[in-house]
């Protein structure tokens, strides 16, 4: 057997192995990139449609998504921003970049985000030219990590259609029940703002007393998951409030009343 332990042989084996391995990985990464990107988009679209209650078994997700319009909104002013390309918008890089985000003071940061991006991509669902649903990305800290989801509101910007979380780290069986279809179904029809315009919707401890006049603002808590339940309340208060989509909602309302 030849001696493998010479320096030249060692170098030759190491270099050729690296070349072969890296070529293989580059090839597969390039070949499969389109499929992977398509999967990611499809996954996101499915979650958005599901929040808005538009998902149907017999229809293709991407064709259903044609009825959805994506807009970039400036969270500071509540106005739509047309200078940012939707393809260029990336929530995580925007919220980290000091030029496109603000640092939250501890009393404003109820959802424990630390920084909030100044722009957000929102989704509008039109049917026969009229606005049917508005789908807002929301996120906030639960027990173990950030819960990310979509909140869909009816065109009155007051009634919930659905709340769908697509990423969370909550305990399976306890906080993880935020993705349970039965719990998600409770959200439909709940109201988010009080008459004076405050965000009042909350996940309470235990079950909602139906006879209570506030029942339409309350959602059954998840048993054994108080911190997760509070996290959901907090993230909704944050994103529907002044620091979140408050200005946008005000803007749409004033535009509607001007139209009338």
């Amino acid at each position: 057997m030849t001696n493998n332990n010479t320096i030249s042989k060692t170098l030759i084996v190491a270099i050729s192995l690296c070349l072969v391995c890296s070529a293989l990985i580059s090839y597969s990464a390039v070949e499969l990139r389109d499929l992977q990107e398509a999967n990611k988009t499809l996954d996101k679209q499915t979650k958005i449609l599901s929040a808005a209650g538009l998902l149907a078994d017999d229809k293709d997700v991407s064709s259903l998504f044609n009825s959805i319009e994506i807009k970039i909104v400036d969270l500071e002013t509540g106005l739509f921003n047309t200078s940012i390309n939707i393809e260029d918008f990336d929530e995580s890089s925007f919220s980290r970049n000091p030029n496109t985000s603000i640092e939250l003071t501890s009393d404003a940061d109820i959802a424990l985000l630390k920084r909030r991006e100044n722009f957000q991509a929102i989704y509008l669902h039109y049917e026969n030219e009229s606005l049917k649903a508005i789908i807002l990305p929301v996120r906030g800290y639960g027990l173990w990590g950030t819960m990310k989801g979509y909140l869909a509101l009816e065109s009155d910007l007051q009634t919930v259609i659905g709340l769908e979380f697509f990423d969370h780290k909550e305990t399976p069986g306890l906080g993880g029940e935020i993705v349970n279809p039965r719990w998600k179904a409770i959200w439909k029809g709940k109201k988010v703002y009080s008459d004076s315009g405050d965000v009042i919707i909350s996940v309470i401890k235990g079950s909602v007393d139906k006879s209570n006049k506030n029942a339409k603002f309350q959602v059954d808590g998840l048993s054994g998951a108080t911190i997760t339940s509070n996290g959901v309340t907090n993230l909704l208060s944050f994103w529907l409030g002044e620091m979140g989509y408050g200005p946008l909602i005000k803007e749409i309302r004033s535009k509607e009343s001007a139209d009338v």
Partner: protein
Amino acid sequence: MSKAKEVLLNPIFNDNPIALQILGICSALAVTGTLYITLIMCVALTSVVTLSNFFVSLIRNHIPTNIRIIVQISIIATLVMLVDEVLQAYDYESSKTLSVFVGLIVTNCIVMGRAEAFAMKNGPIMSAIDGFGNGLGYSIILIVIAVIREFVGAGTFYGIEIMPLTTNGGWYLANNFFLTPASSFFIIGFTIWALRQWKTDQIEEPEFKILKNSLEAEKRTI
């Protein structure tokens, strides 16, 4: 051919990588919450260990001894990245759930252990068979754990509802402990016990004996 059969079947019960060698426990704890995810993980690991054994064995006569571990790891890491890419492209949902655990196959002791212990000394075909057998041995334990955890923890088998949960209006109050990875410790422990009751030659000699406490020892001397 009997050697090949032995190499293939031995790791399943007689020399199981998890139950006897106690390797690869990390992923056995982490990814056994539901059966479907576990099956994906088993396929991923089995293909990695089979192929890595094959390729390591193929070039075993050219690997310089002083960099042999690095060479093995490079081959394993390449295969793991390929598996991860394929998974992201064809089963995105599972790849999201498995997340880092596919990448962590690199550090799975079974893969590296078989490359070093078997593939460096045997031919490519035999090494591939050995890798496949060890993959099966790993899979069988994981499947047992996953079936138990999913059934007790969520009342389902492969996603099909067997016992309706109270949270869904049924009668079965799910045991949430079984949804947490820690429960796997107990299940693995009981599996090993059951296997050793059946194959008694696997029972190890105790490494030390527990001494009687001093008071008792004194009494005896009196």
